[in-house]
């Protein structure tokens, strides 16, 4: 019953105001690409929605569209004109109030009108000039990923997005998990998860210079030893001329029988390795990684992977 309701809810259609969507998007300086990525549709679809007067779209997509435009859903829904809708509060302008008005173009006033018109044109030209020559806002994005991890053991992935300076910026981080890899947890929680396609999306707004997105992932237990998992992702800015920034840094992880914190794969977690773990991974507040196990391995004399138990055995 609940499932049916959820199914019906996901199929519910609503009418949106295409013109309103366009004006909101343009007013906020959003690109069609940004909105399309946030909603999970193509730019053609966004264009079609905007160009039709009242297109009917899925309620789920309308909700995502409203979130991308930073407004309530009601603000983009089609407004049905009501025959009773009058505006009693609007002041009534009496015709007689114009009777004493001066003619619009009285002798001598044309110069003032010319000056005002010139001012408007100059302002427009200045606005166009600065907009056309505005430097694109760019960010850098890098991924921190362990070099290896055993099959079926969780490992952390950290994405650091840095802007050249602290400024209010809305961005969309999209990360695609490799096939045979699934999500365990994420910090901050994701805005959209497409579990079938393995796509994780964070919509982030704020003014901090550096933003960190982290998650724990695990490989499926049917993956083979030596297999390479490849990660890819990009960052889309709300405004700016650069469309997408590809996430640089580490992008592959090999399935090996060594703990991810043991970076040199020598069967030990030494001082430098544990300091690296605590200086990089543990600074992501709330990321639930296997810190107790790492502490135990560091405290012990070594470890080995036990295939039959699918767990690490620590040598005291």
């Amino acid at each position: 019953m609940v499932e049916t309701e959820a199914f019906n809810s996901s199929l519910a259609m609503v009418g949106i105001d295409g013109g309103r969507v366009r004006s909101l998007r343009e007013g906020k300086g959003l690109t069609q690409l940004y909105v399309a990525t946030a909603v999970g549709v193509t730019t053609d679809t966004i264009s079609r929605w905007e160009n039709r007067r009242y297109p009917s779209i899925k309620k789920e997509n309308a909700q995502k569209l409203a979130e991308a435009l930073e407004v309530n859903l009601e603000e983009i829904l089609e407004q049905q004109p009501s025959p009773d809708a009058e505006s009693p509060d609007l002041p009534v302008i009496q015709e007689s109030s114009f009777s004493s008005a001066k003619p619009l173009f009285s002798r001598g006033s044309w110069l003032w009108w010319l000056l005002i018109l010139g001012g408007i044109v100059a302002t427009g030209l200045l606005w166009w000039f600065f907009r056309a020559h505005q430097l694109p806002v760019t960010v850098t994005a890098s991924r921190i990923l362990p070099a290896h991890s055993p099959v079926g053991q969780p490992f952390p992935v950290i994405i650091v997005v840095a802007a050249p300076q602290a400024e209010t910026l809305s961005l969309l981080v999209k990360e695609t998990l490799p096939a045979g890899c699934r999500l365990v947890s994420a910090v901050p929680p994701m805005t959209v998860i497409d579990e079938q396609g393995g796509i994780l999306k964070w919509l982030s707004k704020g003014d901090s210079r550096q933003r960190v997105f982290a998650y724990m992932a695990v490989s499926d237990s049917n993956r083979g030893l030596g297999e390479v998992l490849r990660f890819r992702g990009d960052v889309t800015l709300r405004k700016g001329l650069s469309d997408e920034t590809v996430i640089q840094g580490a992008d592959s992880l090999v399935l090996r029988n060594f703990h991810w914190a043991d970076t040199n794969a020598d069967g030990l977690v030494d001082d430098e390795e544990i300091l690296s773990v605590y200086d990089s991974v543990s600074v992501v507040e709330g990321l639930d990684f296997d810190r107790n196990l790492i502490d135990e391995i560091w405290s012990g004399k070594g470890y080995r992977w036990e295939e039959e138990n699918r767990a690490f055995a620590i040598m005291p």
Partner: protein
Amino acid sequence: MGRKKWCEVMLRRLPGVAFLCLLWCVVMSGRALAEDLVSCRYLQSAGSEIVLEVEVLAPPPPTLIVVQHLPPGTPIGKASPRYKRYDRASGEAKWLLKGIRAGRLIMSLQLEQPLAAGAISGEIRYKDPRTGGMVTMRMSP
């Protein structure tokens, strides 16, 4: 000295002054980077209690490893904060101190038998947040 001549002299000296200023900036920034973020000293290093003072400057390294070498076979009664590992055979005690903030930290070890002066040594390891490099500092009484 006329005003014109004074200006000429100053103009001639300007490159030299600018070079000295630049040199001073380079030296000062180098000194700031070379300054250790962590310093330590033994407040007590003999007898049945060992007390160590660790001072951390900003920006603090988030994690510190403190290693205390005791004579092999030394039994430890109490430790504050609690060590993560103690190998009695080698006499090596290790602490993993997380969430470090700038300031002073006092560490103490109560021993079950008194130690002679000069019998201990230690190390502090951390990653310098300014450079990312590993730092190892030796401690001795």
